[in-house]
Each structure stands twice: as structure tokens, then as C-alpha cells.
């Protein structure tokens, strides 16, 4: 089949359970593969990392003429990106809040245990609904200062925003984009309202920190606060749920490694890194060149969308030995699971802790567990890929 329809086939829901043969086809078709819709696909590790570090490549959808009001920092270029990301980092990580995430370890472990006490042996559970989704949602709600009971409310908004951010080659996404934009506005309003309730009455959460910043030069505008808070709330759980679920699925498919981790829990951090390589939550990112760019001998014209298939780069045999093998002890594992360059995942430290805690607590209980359905039903989204449900019998 023609390589210029690869993006169509990758995004075809029928290929969601296993897009990896298509990624292999993509890498064989060359480092730069033009698509029928005018975009370019790139699935080789070295070209992806070079582009992720190239200051001439834009993450801003407005760089190709799309209209979007005030994108979040994930979709901005420097210097605006740097300013907003730095402000968002102040209450989250070093140097201003160095212990913030580490201090949540105990709470994350407690939430994990709470969820797991509901698991009874001999029963069927859904890893997604009963565990992998509620864990990061609860954590990000605590961290931001969002009431956990509002979850049904923001879940609908979140679904709409994430759907509009998917990579799709098809023609008419106008309606989906409009719904997504509307959801972003409503969700932003909701989060700004929550933050405003804490103005002058600081509590120990990030929304509170944002509105109570004493230095006027370091304050987010209302619109910036809305975009940033929406981004943090959505990115804070939409990806981690897939990381944990993909982890459980992968381990149940590799009982030898599951057993190895049960015996040697010290391997867990390395195993999580391998999961981020082998079954990453984020499969693709879209970028737009700000100038005509030569990539491995092909000139990509300014303003043309380039889809970087991170999950394919993670399986590039030119970078990783025996890339289709899941190996929790893999050395030199500089995967693209968190991207790279200036947009390197902001939440990576939290995601790592959550995945390590979740899998660490779950693994001892997976002794006789088996998958009820393999492959499980997947979510629609091709960019944020993961199972919609993962029923297992324990």
C-alpha cells in the first residue's frame, strides 16, 4: 500500500490495537514521508529528535494559519512559551517549589492503596475505570485544588478538548474543533472561578499559588491562567491513565517480566522508562516549520504540518537494539515518551511517580491475573493512544 496514505491508516480506528507494523512501514518509507493531505510524516528517531530541538519548528497552530485564541504553553513558541511555562513551573517544580512533587509520594501511595482495597480476588475489574483513571485524576485535583466531585463535569470538557487535539488527516474537523474550543472556554472559566475563590485566601494548591503571586511581574493574566489551568488539568490525567493501563497490559502480556518485577521491585523505575518507550501514551505531535527546512534531503516548505510519530521513533532499530522487545532492564533508554526539546513534558516527574506507585502496588496482586480481552477495546484517539477499558480477572 502507498506510503502517502500512512497517516490515514495509522489514524484508522481498526489499527488502533497495533499501529507498530505501520510505524515500521513508515520508517522503511524514509525519514520524511509526504502524505496525500499535504502533510509530512516523520518516524525515525534521529530526525524526530533533531526537529524537536530545532528552533525553526513551531508548536503553535497559528503558524499554519489556524485561528486559535491564546494557546496554552504546550502550543506556543519561545519566548512566549518560555514565559508561561516558567510561570506555570513556579508552584510545581524547582527552583521555587523543589519538593512539591516528591512530597506527594505518600499521598499518591495512599490513594493507590484506597483504590486497590476495592479489588477482590476472583473478581473481574476494569483497570481503566477502577484504577488507572481515578488515580491521576485524584492526584491532579489535589495538586491544582479542584474538587474531586466535579470530575464528571470536567470529564466531558476534557473529552471534547482532547478529541479536537487529535491528529486526523480527514477533511472536515470544523465541528469537532468548534466543540473543543467551546469546551476549553467553559473549562477555563470554571478553573478561573475556582482560583478566584482563593484570591487573598491562599491554600496549598497550584491554583491558589497562581492567583496569590505577590510579584506583579510574575502573575498570569486571566486568559493565561485559564489556558494554563486547563492544560495542567487535562495533561495531568489524560496521559497518565494510558501510561498505567499500557503498563498493566504489557506486563500481563509478558508474564516473565511481570514475575521479574515482582521479585525485584527495584527495577520498577527502569521498567517505567521502558514502558514509555515501548507503549508510550503520546504517539504523535504536530509541528509547523517557520522556514523552508531541509530534513534528510527533503525540503519541507514553511507552514506545512509535520507529524512527528514519537512512538515510531521509540521503535527505531537505528537507535534501539531489538526495539520491538519489551526489556525492563534496557540500558541507554533515551526514549521519546516525554518528547524532547523545549516542550519536554512538564509533568514528567509526576507521571513517573504515579506510574511507579501504581504499578508497584498492583504488581504483587497480579499473581494469577489474566486479560479478559486481548487486545482490549481502545480509545478513539490516535495521538493519545490507550485502551478504553482493560478488563482483567484477578
Amino acid at each position, binding site marked *: 500500500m502507498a506510503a502517502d496514505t500512512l497517516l490515514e491508516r495509522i489514524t484508522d480506528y481498526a489499527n488502533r490495537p497495533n499501529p507498530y507494523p505501520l510505524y515500521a512501514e513508515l520508517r522503511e518509507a524514509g525519514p520524511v514521508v509526504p502524505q496525500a493531505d499535504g502533510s509530512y510524516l516523520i518516524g525515525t528517531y534521529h530526525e524526530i*529528535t*533533531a526537529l524537536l*530541538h*530545532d*528552533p*525553526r519548528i*513551531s508548536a*503553535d497552530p497559528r503558524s499554519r494559519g489556524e485561528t486559535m485564541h491564546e494557546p496554552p504553553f504546550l502550543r506556543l*513558541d*519561545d*519566548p512566549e512559551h*518560555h514565559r508561561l511555562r516558567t510561570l506555570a513551573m513556579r508552584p510545581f517544580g524547582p527552583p521555587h517549589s523543589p519538593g512539591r512533587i516528591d512530597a506527594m509520594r505518600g499521598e499518591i501511595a495512599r490513594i493507590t492503596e484506597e483504590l486497590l482495597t476495592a479489588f477482590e480476588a476472583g473478581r473481574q475489574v476494569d483497570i481503566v475505570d477502577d484504577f488507572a483513571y481515578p488515580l491521576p485524576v485524584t492526584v491532579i485535583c489535589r495538586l491544582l485544588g479542584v474538587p474531586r466531585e466535579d470530575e464528571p463535569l470536567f470529564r466531558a470538557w476534557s473529552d471534547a478538548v482532547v478529541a479536537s487535539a487529535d491528529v486526523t488527516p480527514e477533511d472536515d474537523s470544523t465541528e469537532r474543533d468548534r466543540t473543543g474550543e467551546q469546551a476549553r472556554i467553559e473549562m477555563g472559566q470554571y478553573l478561573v472561578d475556582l482560583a478566584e475563590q482563593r484570591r487573598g485566601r491562599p491554600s496549598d494548591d497550584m491554583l491558589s499559588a497562581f492567583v496569590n503571586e505577590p510579584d506583579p511581574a510574575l502573575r498570569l493574566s486571566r486568559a493565561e491562567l485559564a489556558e494554563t489551568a486547563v492544560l495542567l488539568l487535562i495533561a495531568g490525567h489524560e496521559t497518565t491513565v494510558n501510561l498505567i493501563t499500557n503498563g498493566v497490559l504489557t506486563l500481563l502480556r509478558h508474564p516473565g517480566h511481570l514475575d521479574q518485577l515482582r521479585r525485584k521491585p527495584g527495577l520498577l523505575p527502569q521498567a517505567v522508562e521502558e514502558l514509555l518507550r515501548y507503549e508510550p501514551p503520546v504517539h504523535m505531535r504536530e509541528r509547523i*516549520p*517557520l*522556514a523552508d*527546512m531541509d530534513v534528510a534531503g527533503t525540503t519541507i516548505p*514553511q507552514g506545512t504540518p509535520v507529524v512527528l510519530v514519537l512512538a515510531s521513533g521509540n521503535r527505531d532499530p537505528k537507535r534501539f537494539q531489538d526495539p520491538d522487545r519489551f526489556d525492563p532492564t534496557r540500558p541507554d533508554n533515551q526514549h521519546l515518551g516525554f518528547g*524532547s*526539546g*523545549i516542550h*519536554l513534558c512538564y509533568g514528567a516527574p509526576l507521571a513517573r511517580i504515579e506510574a511507579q506507585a501504581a504499578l508497584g502496588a498492583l504488581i504483587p496482586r497480579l499473581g494469577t491475573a489474566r486479560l479478559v480481552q486481548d487486545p482490549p477495546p481502545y480509545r478513539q484517539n490516535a495521538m493519545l493512544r490507550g485502551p478504553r477499558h482493560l478488563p482483567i480477572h484477578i
Partner: protein
Amino acid sequence: MAGDLREGRIVVVGASLAGLRAAETLREEGFTGSLTVVGDEPCPPYDRPPLSKQVLLGQVAADTTGLPMRRNPEAEWRLGVRATGLDPMGKRVLLADGDALPYDRLLIATGTRARPWPHPEEAALDGVFTLRTRDDAAGLAERLAAGPRRVLVIGAGFTGSEIASACRERGLDVTVTERGPAPLVGALGGTLAKLAAAMQRNHGVDLRCGVTVTALRGDSSGRFTGADLSDGSRVEADVCVVALGAVRNVEWLADSGLAAGPRGIACDAGCRAFTMYGIVTDDVFVAGDVSRFPHPLFGYQMLSLEHWGNAVAQAEVAAHNMVSPGPLRRPHLALPTFWSSQFGLNIKSVGVPTFSDHVVIAQGSLETRRLAMVYGYQGRVTAAVTVDMAKSLEYYQHLIETAAPFPPASGAADRPLAAEIPVPSDVPDPKGLSHGPTVALTGYLPDRRLTMVQPAG
């Protein structure tokens, strides 16, 4: 052949970063023979970058910077004893305690020491420090914690600038003297040096450039009280830090026949030492600050680098080559990189900034104190330095590795107009600086520092 190289006796002289990483790598590469590591300090290997930063700030104690081990190198540690000589015919390392260690292969990783103040009686004044070892850092940190009225730092290279930064962060008055025109100018050239000078002054450093210290003064009880400067002025201070660069620890090799001199021990790209006749040895290897090695990206000039990353990378290559037969040996081609943190700025460099004729600010600006400066030599990119923009460094590293044209292609979202106008890189002759160069180009220098001799007619 390969089997033989994994056995036998290996001696590593130097028990710091390069020595430790080499020892670990030897075991990782399957060396099963006897391994002895000699170090003149009594303590196990420790990390130096924190000594001029966190230790002086009082954030960590000097004796807590021990280097983590990747694996147990299963070595015999001969610590607290100095190597005094090398007998290359008898294949023995002579030690200060009279012992002689026989070897089949030797790795020299003796590094550098702080360049002392040239007048020993002035250097001996109470309150006069250099900063290289853990003990130096502990002593200086203690004095800084005691709250001196003023600290004098002689030399505004990286170490001197980091010390000044730590002093200001502790709220101490500090004077910095530098013979060159600005701090860091020897490593980064004129444009960034202007930013460094502005940062120091903005942070309240009394920065004196274009002057030298002519004498250190003490009181009758031998306590340092101040210094005389070449411009006739005088600085009253309780503490003085001499930050005049480093001296390579090569004296013990004086009779060894190796090509060992003030710039280090010359070796090939595979870390094998040269003899004084330029003949490569096959049983003596060199790694880390004490080495000089040719680099193809910089005209095969012999580089001597005082960089943490180089010590690690070169030690790994040296160790690999020590246990590998010829065709399996690797060259040490890593790009030089270093970082510094001072006055709230993160400075990172890749390539060799002094190997340049022009520079541009390719991203950001001096005004925002956030920028990427790119260095070019004869129309190709040879180095880049970022200030608070470290995530951009990898892009420029790729440009250097691929000899990309200079100035770099336009199109970056945060590229200033100034990026289209390269200016001279303004790297001064190292001879005019207080501090020694942390990167020395010891072969021919870029044109503008070359004397061209052309036949008449």
C-alpha cells in the same frame, strides 16, 4: 588477543572523576585482571562542581560530594600516596612511599591542581585560599560562614566568578580582579563577557578589570588584610581566593620520556600517550584534565579541557581501548561541553568557543538574560553557548557536528534581528588573562592569532 587484554595488571594513577569512571568501565568491558587506583588525596573520589557552588553556599558539606559508583570497580585503592615517577622500560609506577607498582597497561588521570599564588610567603597568609580540593572548599566555606568584611577573588574565570556569585548570595562584599577586559572573556569571548560583567555589577560585585594584584598584605600575626593592585589602589579584605586557573599534574612524569608538559600529556584520539618523540605508546593511556588530544572538528588541534564531561567521556574511551584489540578501539570524539551556574544564570557551552572568528546571538537577547550565542570559524558553526536556554543546546550541537554553515539558518521564532549580523568573537589571547584558559588550543590558532610567514616575492 582480546582475551589477553582482559587480563593482566592495570594501574590507574589519579583517583578522581576520570580515574573512577575508567576503573568502572574497565570492569564493565570485562577486565578481570588486577586493578590498582592510586590517588594522592586520602579520600575516595569526589565530585568537584559543587565545591564552588553548593558547598560555598553552605547548602552541603564539602565531605558529602563523594562520587556515586556505577558499579564496584573491584580495585585496590592506594589513596593518600603520590605517584612520583614512571619507569616505562620496567613498566612500573613509583610511589612516594617507596613502593613500585608493576603494570601491563597504565592509565594516567592525574588531572590538575590550583595554580598557587606566585609568592609563597604571601600565599601562606591566613585567609588566603585556592579552590580545587574538598579541603580547600571546606576551609573557604567555613571562612565565608564566619562573615568576613570583604572577600577578594583574584581571577574572573569560571571558578572565580562562581566564588564571587556564592559570596554575593551569602550577602558578603566581594571584589573581583581580572587582568583581562571582562569576566569569562577567555572562555566565551567579548560579547558574552559584557553580559557577565553586567551580571556581576548588578549583583553588587566590585569588579575591577584590566588590573592585577601586585601584593597580598598581612598583619603581624600573619592574617591576610588586603591587597595592592597594579592601578595603585588597595583592597581591604579578610579572605582572598586565588583563582588563577590550573596547573597540570605532570611533574612526576619528567623522566618518563612521555610528551608531558604544561598543557598536559599529548595523546592520540584513542587516548594512547605520545612519547617526547611523538611516537605513540601502546601501554600508556591518558584521560581527563591532564590530557591533550586531537579533535577532528577543530582542525585536529590538540585540546586540553578542564571539563567534567570530558573527564567522563575520555575515561570511558580510554578504558575501552585498554581492553580492546586495535580494530575495535574507538576514538574520543565527544564534543566539549561544560556548564556553570552563577548570579542566577545557567551557562552551558558546547563546542570550542575560542575556536571562532565571529559570533551571533541566534536566539533571545542580552537584555532578557536569556540567549543562545553561536560561534563560527571561517563560515561554519564551531560552538554555542546558552544562557538560561539549555534545552536549545542540542540543536547547536548537531550544527557543530555536521559542520553547518555560519551564521545558522534563520527562522527561529525567537530569533532577534541581530542574528543576521555576525560580529567578531573577540576572543583575547589567553596570555592576557588572570586565569588560565579552561580550553587550550595548543596547535595552531585561528587565523587572527596566527603570524603568517610568507616568502618574499
